[in-house]
Protein backbone atom coordinates (compact mmCIF):
# COMPACT_ATOMS: atom_id res chain seq x y z
CA UNK A 1 0.00 0.00 0.00
CA UNK A 2 1.26 3.47 -0.90
CA UNK A 3 1.62 6.16 1.72
CA UNK A 4 -1.73 7.53 2.83
CA UNK A 5 -2.76 10.86 1.26
CA UNK A 6 -4.94 11.75 4.18
CA UNK A 7 -4.95 10.37 7.71
CA UNK A 8 -6.54 11.08 11.04
CA UNK A 9 -5.02 10.13 14.38
CA UNK A 10 -7.40 9.84 17.36
CA UNK A 11 -9.52 12.69 16.01
CA UNK A 12 -12.12 13.97 18.47
CA UNK A 13 -14.87 16.55 18.25
CA UNK A 14 -17.43 17.49 20.81
CA UNK A 15 -20.46 19.76 20.49
CA UNK A 16 -21.18 20.73 24.07
CA UNK A 17 -21.85 17.47 25.88
CA UNK A 18 -22.38 15.57 22.63
CA UNK A 19 -19.41 13.50 21.51
CA UNK A 20 -19.57 13.83 17.71
CA UNK A 21 -16.25 12.11 17.01
CA UNK A 22 -14.43 9.89 19.46
CA UNK A 23 -10.83 8.93 18.73
CA UNK A 24 -11.15 8.32 15.00
CA UNK A 25 -8.19 6.79 13.17
CA UNK A 26 -8.27 6.82 9.41
CA UNK A 27 -5.87 6.29 6.51
CA UNK A 28 -6.79 6.81 2.89
CA UNK A 29 -4.27 5.67 0.30
CA UNK A 30 -3.67 7.29 -3.03
CA UNK A 31 -6.37 6.14 -5.45
CA UNK A 32 -8.41 4.54 -2.69
CA UNK A 33 -12.11 5.16 -2.19
CA UNK A 34 -13.29 4.86 1.39
CA UNK A 35 -16.99 4.96 2.24
CA UNK A 36 -18.17 6.23 5.62
CA UNK A 37 -21.48 4.69 6.48
CA UNK A 38 -23.68 4.75 9.51
CA UNK A 39 -26.98 6.07 10.81
CA UNK A 40 -27.86 9.77 10.84
CA UNK A 41 -25.90 11.70 13.41
CA UNK A 42 -23.14 9.09 13.62
CA UNK A 43 -20.48 11.66 12.75
CA UNK A 44 -19.97 11.07 9.01
CA UNK A 45 -20.28 14.70 7.99
CA UNK A 46 -18.45 15.95 11.07
CA UNK A 47 -15.52 13.69 10.25
CA UNK A 48 -15.33 15.05 6.70
CA UNK A 49 -15.58 18.62 7.97
CA UNK A 50 -12.87 18.03 10.55
CA UNK A 51 -10.59 16.46 7.94
CA UNK A 52 -10.93 19.62 5.84
CA UNK A 53 -10.57 21.77 8.97
CA UNK A 54 -13.90 23.41 8.17
CA UNK A 55 -14.69 22.34 11.71
CA UNK A 56 -11.93 22.61 14.28
CA UNK A 57 -11.29 19.20 15.86
CA UNK A 58 -10.89 19.25 19.64
CA UNK A 59 -8.40 16.41 19.76
CA UNK A 60 -6.05 14.48 17.53
CA UNK A 61 -4.34 15.40 14.30
CA UNK A 62 -5.00 15.32 10.59
CA UNK A 63 -2.15 14.45 8.25
CA UNK A 64 -2.25 15.42 4.59
CA UNK A 65 0.37 13.64 2.51
CA UNK A 66 2.21 12.91 5.74
CA UNK A 67 2.31 16.53 6.90
CA UNK A 68 0.20 17.90 9.75
CA UNK A 69 -2.80 19.97 8.69
CA UNK A 70 -4.64 22.18 11.15
CA UNK A 71 -2.39 21.59 14.12
CA UNK A 72 1.30 21.24 14.76
CA UNK A 73 2.75 17.74 14.45
CA UNK A 74 2.26 17.00 18.16
CA UNK A 75 -1.33 18.22 17.97
CA UNK A 76 -0.91 20.79 20.71
CA UNK A 77 -1.10 24.04 18.80
CA UNK A 78 -3.24 25.29 15.93
CA UNK A 79 -1.53 26.29 12.71
CA UNK A 80 -2.02 29.90 11.65
CA UNK A 81 -5.18 30.61 9.64
CA UNK A 82 -2.96 31.58 6.73
CA UNK A 83 -1.19 28.22 6.76
CA UNK A 84 -4.47 26.35 7.04
CA UNK A 85 -6.00 28.33 4.17
CA UNK A 86 -2.93 27.61 2.04
CA UNK A 87 -3.11 23.84 2.63
CA UNK A 88 -6.90 23.41 2.58
CA UNK A 89 -7.45 23.32 -1.20
CA UNK A 90 -5.22 20.22 -1.33
CA UNK A 91 -8.36 18.59 0.06
CA UNK A 92 -11.27 19.02 -2.31
CA UNK A 93 -14.68 19.16 -0.67
CA UNK A 94 -17.88 18.37 -2.52
CA UNK A 95 -20.71 19.50 -0.28
CA UNK A 96 -24.02 17.73 0.05
CA UNK A 97 -25.83 20.83 -1.19
CA UNK A 98 -22.88 21.53 -3.54
CA UNK A 99 -22.87 25.24 -2.61
CA UNK A 100 -22.13 26.42 -6.12
CA UNK A 101 -21.96 30.20 -6.37
CA UNK A 102 -25.23 31.18 -8.05
CA UNK A 103 -24.08 34.57 -9.31
CA UNK A 104 -21.38 33.11 -11.56
CA UNK A 105 -21.38 30.86 -14.59
CA UNK A 106 -20.39 27.23 -14.15
CA UNK A 107 -17.03 28.00 -15.74
CA UNK A 108 -16.40 30.93 -13.38
CA UNK A 109 -17.25 28.69 -10.43
CA UNK A 110 -14.44 26.40 -11.53
CA UNK A 111 -11.97 29.17 -12.40
CA UNK A 112 -12.65 31.45 -9.43
CA UNK A 113 -10.20 29.93 -6.97
CA UNK A 114 -7.45 29.77 -9.58
CA UNK A 115 -7.81 33.51 -10.06
CA UNK A 116 -8.44 34.56 -6.44
CA UNK A 117 -6.30 32.07 -4.57
CA UNK A 118 -3.63 30.95 -7.03
CA UNK A 119 -3.43 34.43 -8.60
CA UNK A 120 -3.46 32.90 -12.05
CA UNK A 121 -4.15 35.29 -14.94
CA UNK A 122 -7.85 35.13 -15.79
CA UNK A 123 -7.29 33.84 -19.33
CA UNK A 124 -5.12 30.94 -18.18
CA UNK A 125 -7.51 30.11 -15.34
CA UNK A 126 -10.50 30.05 -17.65
CA UNK A 127 -8.62 27.88 -20.10
CA UNK A 128 -7.77 25.39 -17.37
CA UNK A 129 -11.36 25.46 -16.13
CA UNK A 130 -12.58 24.90 -19.66
CA UNK A 131 -10.43 21.82 -20.13
CA UNK A 132 -11.69 20.44 -16.81
CA UNK A 133 -15.36 20.92 -17.64
CA UNK A 134 -14.70 19.37 -21.05
CA UNK A 135 -13.34 16.23 -19.37
CA UNK A 136 -16.62 15.99 -17.52
CA UNK A 137 -18.70 16.48 -20.64
CA UNK A 138 -19.88 19.92 -19.61
CA UNK A 139 -18.29 22.02 -22.37
CA UNK A 140 -21.66 22.95 -23.87
CA UNK A 141 -23.06 24.17 -20.57
CA UNK A 142 -20.06 25.92 -19.07
CA UNK A 143 -21.48 29.38 -19.62
CA UNK A 144 -24.73 28.63 -17.79
CA UNK A 145 -25.49 29.61 -14.24
CA UNK A 146 -25.90 26.81 -11.68
CA UNK A 147 -29.66 27.49 -11.56
CA UNK A 148 -29.90 26.48 -15.22
CA UNK A 149 -28.15 23.12 -14.72
CA UNK A 150 -29.58 19.78 -13.65
CA UNK A 151 -28.61 18.17 -10.36
CA UNK A 152 -26.09 15.83 -11.98
CA UNK A 153 -24.55 18.66 -14.00
CA UNK A 154 -24.23 20.81 -10.90
CA UNK A 155 -22.47 18.02 -9.11
CA UNK A 156 -19.96 17.66 -11.91
CA UNK A 157 -19.27 21.40 -11.75
CA UNK A 158 -18.78 21.14 -7.99
CA UNK A 159 -16.30 18.31 -8.57
CA UNK A 160 -14.52 20.38 -11.24
CA UNK A 161 -14.34 23.31 -8.84
CA UNK A 162 -12.56 21.14 -6.29
CA UNK A 163 -10.33 19.52 -8.92
CA UNK A 164 -9.19 22.87 -10.27
CA UNK A 165 -7.00 23.24 -7.18
CA UNK A 166 -5.35 19.85 -7.88
CA UNK A 167 -6.29 18.18 -4.62
CA UNK A 168 -4.55 15.12 -3.21
CA UNK A 169 -7.78 14.00 -1.59
CA UNK A 170 -11.47 14.53 -2.28
CA UNK A 171 -14.20 14.43 0.32
CA UNK A 172 -17.81 13.86 -0.71
CA UNK A 173 -20.71 14.50 1.61
CA UNK A 174 -23.70 12.41 0.51
CA UNK A 175 -22.93 12.60 -3.21
CA UNK A 176 -25.99 10.59 -4.25
CA UNK A 177 -28.61 12.13 -1.99
CA UNK A 178 -29.80 14.75 -4.46
CA UNK A 179 -29.45 12.67 -7.59
CA UNK A 180 -31.82 10.87 -9.84
CA UNK A 181 -31.23 7.15 -9.05
CA UNK A 182 -30.28 6.55 -12.67
CA UNK A 183 -27.31 8.89 -12.31
CA UNK A 184 -25.81 7.11 -9.32
CA UNK A 185 -23.78 4.67 -11.39
CA UNK A 186 -22.47 7.62 -13.38
CA UNK A 187 -21.12 9.10 -10.16
CA UNK A 188 -19.43 5.80 -9.40
CA UNK A 189 -17.72 5.89 -12.79
CA UNK A 190 -16.55 9.45 -12.16
CA UNK A 191 -15.10 8.45 -8.79
CA UNK A 192 -13.37 5.42 -10.31
CA UNK A 193 -11.89 7.64 -13.00
CA UNK A 194 -10.61 10.08 -10.34
CA UNK A 195 -9.18 7.24 -8.29
CA UNK A 196 -7.21 6.25 -11.36
CA UNK A 197 -5.41 9.60 -11.20
CA UNK A 198 -4.24 8.84 -7.66
CA UNK A 199 -6.69 10.97 -5.69
CA UNK A 200 -7.74 9.43 -2.39
CA UNK A 201 -11.44 9.79 -1.61
CA UNK A 202 -13.67 9.66 1.40
CA UNK A 203 -17.41 9.44 0.81
CA UNK A 204 -19.96 9.94 3.53
CA UNK A 205 -23.10 8.18 2.44
CA UNK A 206 -26.16 6.48 3.82
CA UNK A 207 -26.66 4.75 0.50
CA UNK A 208 -25.28 1.24 1.08
CA UNK A 209 -25.83 0.26 -2.53
CA UNK A 210 -23.69 3.13 -3.68
CA UNK A 211 -21.01 2.42 -1.07
CA UNK A 212 -20.94 -1.18 -2.24
CA UNK A 213 -20.65 -0.20 -5.90
CA UNK A 214 -18.15 2.60 -5.52
CA UNK A 215 -15.85 2.05 -2.56
CA UNK A 216 -12.82 -0.14 -1.88
CA UNK A 217 -13.07 0.05 1.84
CA UNK A 218 -15.83 0.74 4.30
CA UNK A 219 -15.90 2.38 7.68
CA UNK A 220 -19.01 1.94 9.77
CA UNK A 221 -19.46 4.72 12.30
CA UNK A 222 -21.85 4.94 15.17
CA UNK A 223 -22.00 7.59 17.87
CA UNK A 224 -18.72 9.05 16.69
CA UNK A 225 -16.79 5.77 16.92
CA UNK A 226 -15.53 3.34 14.31
CA UNK A 227 -17.55 0.19 14.87
CA UNK A 228 -16.22 -1.84 11.99
CA UNK A 229 -13.92 -1.37 9.03
CA UNK A 230 -12.72 -3.56 6.20
CA UNK A 231 -12.75 -4.19 2.45
CA UNK A 232 -16.20 -3.21 1.20
CA UNK A 233 -17.26 -6.43 -0.50
CA UNK A 234 -16.17 -8.81 2.24
CA UNK A 235 -17.38 -6.62 5.07
CA UNK A 236 -20.84 -6.23 3.59
CA UNK A 237 -21.05 -9.93 2.74
CA UNK A 238 -19.94 -11.03 6.20
CA UNK A 239 -19.99 -8.29 8.82
CA UNK A 240 -18.07 -9.06 11.99
CA UNK A 241 -20.16 -7.02 14.35
CA UNK A 242 -23.79 -7.55 15.17
CA UNK A 243 -24.37 -3.82 14.92
CA UNK A 244 -23.27 -3.60 11.28
CA UNK A 245 -25.27 -6.72 10.51
CA UNK A 246 -28.45 -5.19 11.90
CA UNK A 247 -27.70 -1.90 10.14
CA UNK A 248 -27.33 -3.70 6.80
CA UNK A 249 -30.56 -5.61 7.40
CA UNK A 250 -32.48 -2.50 8.32
CA UNK A 251 -31.41 -0.54 5.23
CA UNK A 252 -31.65 -3.38 2.70
CA UNK A 253 -35.27 -4.16 3.34
CA UNK A 254 -36.21 -4.67 -0.30
Amino acid at each position, binding site marked *: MTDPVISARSLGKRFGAFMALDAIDLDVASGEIVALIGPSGCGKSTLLRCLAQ*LEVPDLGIVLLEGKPFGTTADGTRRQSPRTI*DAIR*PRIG*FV*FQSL*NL*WPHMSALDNVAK*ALISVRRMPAAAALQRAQSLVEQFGMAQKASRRP*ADLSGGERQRIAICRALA*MEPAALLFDEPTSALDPELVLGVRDVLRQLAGTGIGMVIATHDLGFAKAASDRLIFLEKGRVVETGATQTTLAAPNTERLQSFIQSVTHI
Partner: protein
Amino acid sequence: MGFDVSIITDNWPLFVQGVVTTLLITAIALPLGFLIAIPVAFMKLSRFAILRAVAAFYIELFRNAPFLIVLYVIFYALPTLQVRLPPLVVGTGVLCLYATSYLAEIIRGAYLAVPRGQLEAARAVGMSHFQGIREIVAPQMVGFLIPPSTNMGIILIKETSVLALISVGELTYQGMVVQAATFAPFEVFVAVGGLYWLVCSVLSFAAATAERRSAHAIDGPRRQSVADSFLSLDARWRK
Protein backbone atom coordinates in the same frame (compact mmCIF):
# COMPACT_ATOMS: atom_id res chain seq x y z
CA MET B 1 -60.77 78.28 -1.31
CA GLY B 2 -58.46 79.58 -4.02
CA PHE B 3 -55.07 78.21 -4.92
CA ASP B 4 -52.65 80.98 -5.87
CA VAL B 5 -50.08 79.39 -8.17
CA SER B 6 -48.06 82.60 -8.27
CA ILE B 7 -46.96 81.98 -4.67
CA ILE B 8 -45.04 79.00 -6.03
CA THR B 9 -43.91 80.41 -9.36
CA ASP B 10 -42.69 83.67 -7.82
CA ASN B 11 -40.55 81.88 -5.26
CA TRP B 12 -39.26 78.95 -7.30
CA PRO B 13 -35.54 79.73 -6.74
CA LEU B 14 -36.01 79.17 -3.01
CA PHE B 15 -37.79 75.87 -3.58
CA VAL B 16 -35.06 74.74 -5.95
CA GLN B 17 -32.42 75.70 -3.42
CA GLY B 18 -34.31 73.70 -0.80
CA VAL B 19 -34.49 70.62 -3.02
CA VAL B 20 -30.77 70.88 -3.82
CA THR B 21 -29.85 71.14 -0.12
CA THR B 22 -32.13 68.23 0.78
CA LEU B 23 -30.58 66.08 -1.93
CA LEU B 24 -27.09 67.15 -0.94
CA ILE B 25 -27.66 66.19 2.71
CA THR B 26 -29.10 62.81 1.72
CA ALA B 27 -26.38 62.21 -0.86
CA ILE B 28 -23.77 62.62 1.88
CA ALA B 29 -25.59 60.99 4.82
CA LEU B 30 -26.68 57.81 3.00
CA PRO B 31 -23.36 56.68 1.44
CA LEU B 32 -21.33 57.81 4.44
CA GLY B 33 -23.78 56.09 6.79
CA PHE B 34 -23.46 52.96 4.66
CA LEU B 35 -19.68 52.99 4.94
CA ILE B 36 -19.82 53.37 8.72
CA ALA B 37 -22.55 50.74 8.94
CA ILE B 38 -20.39 48.04 7.32
CA PRO B 39 -17.98 47.69 10.30
CA VAL B 40 -20.87 48.12 12.75
CA ALA B 41 -22.78 45.28 11.05
CA PHE B 42 -19.77 42.97 11.13
CA MET B 43 -19.09 43.88 14.76
CA LYS B 44 -22.63 42.80 15.54
CA LEU B 45 -21.94 39.52 13.70
CA SER B 46 -18.63 39.02 15.49
CA ARG B 47 -17.94 36.06 17.73
CA PHE B 48 -16.47 38.46 20.29
CA ALA B 49 -19.11 39.52 22.81
CA ILE B 50 -17.50 42.89 23.45
CA LEU B 51 -17.69 43.88 19.76
CA ARG B 52 -21.29 42.69 19.58
CA ALA B 53 -22.14 44.74 22.66
CA VAL B 54 -20.55 47.93 21.31
CA ALA B 55 -22.39 47.57 18.00
CA ALA B 56 -25.69 46.80 19.72
CA PHE B 57 -25.26 49.82 22.01
CA TYR B 58 -24.66 52.12 19.04
CA ILE B 59 -27.59 50.73 17.07
CA GLU B 60 -30.07 50.88 19.95
CA LEU B 61 -28.90 54.34 21.01
CA PHE B 62 -29.79 55.93 17.69
CA ARG B 63 -32.65 53.71 16.69
CA ASN B 64 -34.77 53.92 19.81
CA ALA B 65 -35.06 57.69 20.21
CA PRO B 66 -36.95 60.09 17.94
CA PHE B 67 -34.64 61.66 15.39
CA LEU B 68 -35.62 65.18 16.47
CA ILE B 69 -34.56 64.49 20.06
CA VAL B 70 -31.25 62.94 18.99
CA LEU B 71 -30.68 65.98 16.79
CA TYR B 72 -31.48 68.45 19.58
CA VAL B 73 -29.31 66.66 22.13
CA ILE B 74 -26.27 66.64 19.86
CA PHE B 75 -26.91 70.10 18.43
CA TYR B 76 -27.13 71.68 21.87
CA ALA B 77 -24.40 69.54 23.43
CA LEU B 78 -21.71 70.54 20.94
CA PRO B 79 -21.41 74.23 21.97
CA THR B 80 -20.97 73.20 25.61
CA LEU B 81 -18.00 71.13 24.41
CA GLN B 82 -16.63 74.24 22.67
CA VAL B 83 -17.38 72.72 19.27
CA ARG B 84 -18.94 75.19 16.88
CA LEU B 85 -20.06 73.85 13.54
CA PRO B 86 -22.54 75.14 10.96
CA PRO B 87 -26.05 73.66 11.39
CA LEU B 88 -25.77 72.08 7.94
CA VAL B 89 -22.74 70.07 9.06
CA VAL B 90 -24.26 69.05 12.40
CA GLY B 91 -27.56 68.15 10.77
CA THR B 92 -25.95 66.05 8.05
CA GLY B 93 -23.69 64.34 10.60
CA VAL B 94 -26.52 63.43 12.96
CA LEU B 95 -28.66 62.21 10.07
CA CYS B 96 -25.73 60.06 8.97
CA LEU B 97 -25.30 58.53 12.45
CA TYR B 98 -29.02 57.92 12.63
CA ALA B 99 -29.02 56.21 9.22
CA THR B 100 -26.02 54.11 10.24
CA SER B 101 -27.95 52.39 13.03
CA TYR B 102 -30.60 51.19 10.57
CA LEU B 103 -28.19 50.45 7.74
CA ALA B 104 -26.05 48.28 10.04
CA GLU B 105 -29.06 46.06 10.65
CA ILE B 106 -29.89 46.06 6.94
CA ILE B 107 -26.35 44.91 6.10
CA ARG B 108 -26.41 42.28 8.84
CA GLY B 109 -29.70 40.95 7.49
CA ALA B 110 -28.33 40.78 3.95
CA TYR B 111 -25.26 38.92 5.18
CA LEU B 112 -27.39 36.38 7.03
CA ALA B 113 -29.61 35.97 3.98
CA VAL B 114 -26.74 34.49 1.96
CA PRO B 115 -26.56 30.76 2.80
CA ARG B 116 -23.66 29.83 5.05
CA GLY B 117 -22.53 27.16 2.61
CA GLN B 118 -21.53 29.84 0.13
CA LEU B 119 -18.77 31.11 2.38
CA GLU B 120 -17.81 27.57 3.31
CA ALA B 121 -17.37 26.66 -0.34
CA ALA B 122 -15.09 29.67 -0.69
CA ARG B 123 -13.05 28.54 2.32
CA ALA B 124 -12.88 25.00 0.92
CA VAL B 125 -11.05 26.17 -2.22
CA GLY B 126 -8.54 28.12 -0.13
CA MET B 127 -9.97 31.60 0.28
CA SER B 128 -9.53 33.35 3.61
CA HIS B 129 -12.59 34.28 5.64
CA PHE B 130 -12.31 37.91 4.56
CA GLN B 131 -11.70 37.04 0.93
CA GLY B 132 -14.70 34.74 0.90
CA ILE B 133 -16.92 37.48 2.29
CA ARG B 134 -15.59 40.04 -0.17
CA GLU B 135 -15.56 37.95 -3.32
CA ILE B 136 -18.37 35.44 -2.80
CA VAL B 137 -20.81 36.67 -0.15
CA ALA B 138 -20.79 40.44 -0.79
CA PRO B 139 -21.86 40.23 -4.46
CA GLN B 140 -24.80 38.07 -3.38
CA MET B 141 -25.76 40.56 -0.67
CA VAL B 142 -26.47 43.33 -3.20
CA GLY B 143 -29.88 41.98 -4.14
CA PHE B 144 -30.87 41.84 -0.47
CA LEU B 145 -29.53 45.35 0.20
CA ILE B 146 -31.26 47.35 -2.50
CA PRO B 147 -34.92 47.28 -1.35
CA PRO B 148 -34.34 48.15 2.33
CA SER B 149 -31.64 50.70 1.44
CA THR B 150 -34.09 52.39 -0.89
CA ASN B 151 -36.52 52.61 2.01
CA MET B 152 -33.76 54.13 4.06
CA GLY B 153 -32.96 56.70 1.36
CA ILE B 154 -36.61 57.72 1.15
CA ILE B 155 -36.87 57.96 4.92
CA LEU B 156 -33.74 60.11 5.01
CA ILE B 157 -35.01 62.47 2.32
CA LYS B 158 -38.17 63.02 4.34
CA GLU B 159 -36.32 63.12 7.66
CA THR B 160 -34.18 66.04 6.41
CA SER B 161 -37.29 68.16 6.99
CA VAL B 162 -36.56 67.90 10.72
CA LEU B 163 -33.29 69.74 10.12
CA ALA B 164 -35.39 72.87 9.41
CA LEU B 165 -35.74 73.13 13.19
CA ILE B 166 -32.02 73.83 13.53
CA SER B 167 -32.23 76.26 10.58
CA VAL B 168 -30.66 74.11 7.91
CA GLY B 169 -31.78 75.59 4.58
CA GLU B 170 -33.36 72.48 3.15
CA LEU B 171 -36.73 72.19 1.45
CA THR B 172 -39.01 72.48 4.51
CA TYR B 173 -37.01 75.42 5.83
CA GLN B 174 -37.31 77.25 2.50
CA GLY B 175 -41.03 76.55 2.57
CA MET B 176 -41.23 78.14 5.99
CA VAL B 177 -39.32 81.17 4.68
CA VAL B 178 -41.71 81.58 1.74
CA GLN B 179 -44.67 81.07 4.02
CA ALA B 180 -43.46 83.77 6.42
CA ALA B 181 -43.18 86.21 3.53
CA THR B 182 -46.43 85.35 1.72
CA PHE B 183 -48.76 84.15 4.50
CA ALA B 184 -49.90 81.40 2.13
CA PRO B 185 -49.14 78.15 4.00
CA PHE B 186 -51.51 76.04 1.91
CA GLU B 187 -49.86 76.77 -1.44
CA VAL B 188 -46.39 76.62 0.06
CA PHE B 189 -46.78 73.26 1.74
CA VAL B 190 -48.59 71.71 -1.20
CA ALA B 191 -45.53 72.70 -3.23
CA VAL B 192 -43.11 71.44 -0.59
CA GLY B 193 -44.98 68.15 -0.23
CA GLY B 194 -45.18 67.72 -3.99
CA LEU B 195 -41.45 68.24 -4.32
CA TYR B 196 -40.69 65.65 -1.61
CA TRP B 197 -43.01 63.24 -3.36
CA LEU B 198 -41.38 63.84 -6.72
CA VAL B 199 -37.84 63.39 -5.43
CA CYS B 200 -38.73 60.20 -3.55
CA SER B 201 -40.61 58.78 -6.54
CA VAL B 202 -37.59 59.27 -8.78
CA LEU B 203 -35.44 57.46 -6.22
CA SER B 204 -37.94 54.58 -5.96
CA PHE B 205 -37.99 54.21 -9.71
CA ALA B 206 -34.20 54.24 -9.97
CA ALA B 207 -33.93 51.65 -7.20
CA ALA B 208 -36.53 49.39 -8.82
CA THR B 209 -34.48 49.46 -12.00
CA ALA B 210 -31.28 48.67 -10.11
CA GLU B 211 -33.02 45.81 -8.32
CA ARG B 212 -34.22 44.31 -11.58
CA ARG B 213 -30.70 44.50 -12.97
CA SER B 214 -29.18 42.83 -9.92
CA ALA B 215 -31.78 40.05 -9.92
CA HIS B 216 -30.96 39.58 -13.57
CA ALA B 217 -27.29 39.43 -12.72
CA ILE B 218 -27.77 36.68 -10.17
CA ASP B 219 -30.37 34.48 -11.83
CA GLY B 220 -29.54 35.12 -15.43
CA PRO B 221 -32.41 35.77 -17.79
CA ARG B 222 -35.41 34.60 -15.85
CA ARG B 223 -37.14 31.90 -17.79
CA GLN B 224 -40.47 31.04 -16.41
CA SER B 225 -41.26 27.38 -16.77
CA VAL B 226 -44.69 26.41 -17.98
CA ALA B 227 -45.34 24.52 -14.77
CA ASP B 228 -44.44 27.57 -12.73
CA SER B 229 -47.25 29.63 -14.20
CA PHE B 230 -49.79 26.91 -13.49
CA LEU B 231 -48.68 25.55 -10.19
CA SER B 232 -47.79 28.59 -8.13
CA LEU B 233 -50.47 29.60 -5.69
CA ASP B 234 -50.07 33.24 -6.54
CA ALA B 235 -49.67 32.80 -10.31
CA ARG B 236 -52.88 34.60 -11.18
CA TRP B 237 -51.85 37.61 -9.15
CA ARG B 238 -48.59 38.06 -10.99
CA LYS B 239 -47.82 39.52 -14.33
